[in-house]
């Protein structure tokens, strides 16, 4: 098959799918074509679509490739879909997502001890929306569920993979700071506070 034809077919398939299409899936559809060739095509397609600057672009998300609308038109699209910014995640939900994303697999108790509040309601909503899923059980008393993020999570937040997550500020660094940063309590604590008038 010609390179140009392959590219066109790949585009068609990604378009039809709606969901992100992985290289693996494409390799199954084109058994006679080297994976490296498929990869090259995809790389070229990414660039081409970016350069074309149309209302649609090709995104590399959640371990696959997906056509999406260009960011600029979101107002008109919500207008068209007759909905008012349907996408709403509460701050609570976002916090829980962030904790799960970075600490996965993680139990509900662990999430709650960071946030300081009960999170079961939020967790159930996120499960239902398939942004998180149950990954297994922790081998401790009570065998609590371990939660992790899904492909849907990567898709929603436009990430290629979990390694695409921005790096977190290191907690170790914080402890370091604490030890050096907090002066031992002195006999005269008032010194560290505002000077008396």
């Amino acid at each position, binding site marked *: 098959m010609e390179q140009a034809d392959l590219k066109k077919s790949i585009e068609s398939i990604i378009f039809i799918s709606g969901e992100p299409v992985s290289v693996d899936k494409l390799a199954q559809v084109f058994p006679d074509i080297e994976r490296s060739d498929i990869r090259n095509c995809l790389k070229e397609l990414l660039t081409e679509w970016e350069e074309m600057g149309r209302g649609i672009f090709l995104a590399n998300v959640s371990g696959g490739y997906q056509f999406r609308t260009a960011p600029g038109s979101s107002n008109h699209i919500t207008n068209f879909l007759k909905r008012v910014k349907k996408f709403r995640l509460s701050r*609570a939900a976002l916090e829980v997502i962030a904790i799960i994303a970075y600490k996965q697999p993680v139990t509900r108790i662990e999430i709650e001890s960071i946030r300081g509040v009960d999170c079961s309601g939020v967790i159930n909503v996120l499960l*239902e929306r398939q942004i998180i899923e149950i990954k297994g059980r922790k081998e401790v008393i009570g065998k609590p569920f371990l939660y992790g993020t899904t492909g849907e999570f990567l898709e929603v937040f436009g990430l290629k993979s979990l390694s695409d997550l921005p790096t977190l500020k290191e907690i170790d660094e914080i402890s370091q700071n*604490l030890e050096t940063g907090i002066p031992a309590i002195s006999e005269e604590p008032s010194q560290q506070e505002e000077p008396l008038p």
Partner: protein
Amino acid sequence: MKNQIPGAGPLEPKEPCVIKINLFEGPMDLLLHLIKKNEMDIYDIKVAAITDQYIEYLELMKELNLEVAGDYLVIAAELSLIKSKMLLPKPVIEEEEEDPRAELVRRLLEYQVYQDAASDLFEGEVLGRDVFKREPDKGDLSIEEVELVPVNLWSLIEAFREFYDRRKELWAEDLSFITEEITIEEKLEQVLNKIRTLGEIGFERLFTECESKFDLILTFLSLLELARMDSVHIVQESPDAPMIIVYSGENHFGAS
């Protein structure tokens, strides 16, 4: 300062009901807010001042008839404890004794890290808000299944739930509210006792006796659990005959 709770808005004074409100995402969020508002160094929190303001805030919430979650009270107690420790004269024996605030600061910082990460996540191009994907053509994909769902454990549970809901409508009108609190363990014993006494009972009869949706769900869960534990067997005499639940003579439930 008391009236400056963001988003609280005007409240009708005659409303006696308790309103649950998410002004803050919990005690840690409130604490961080207070620290920022007072322009304090997070590594050097003035515990006395913060504790007073924190408790003042909780009092206000109570005054406004807002529900104060227990989680807030736990942190209030911790703060008070730290405050009192700070006031104690420091014993000279141990040189490197940890600051009583250290643990709380560590938790606050950790929480802050995830709060920041959450807002970072939301800054990017979010699907369904900034960018949109195309739903797959139904015509193209409807090859055989009416409804397609991805496979994960959650879907399995979800399938179960919908299955209950469907059966529930067949067996019981949702007539009654829950008048008594009953646990699954208690229900399981009840169901087992009933089957043990009768020796056997028709599948449908077991459920037509249910008084509420809640009861129905519990009964069904109990039955599944009993079947799983081999305490009961579910049998039929012929393919068209009604299902019968038979007591198997073993009580595995008593063991746990």
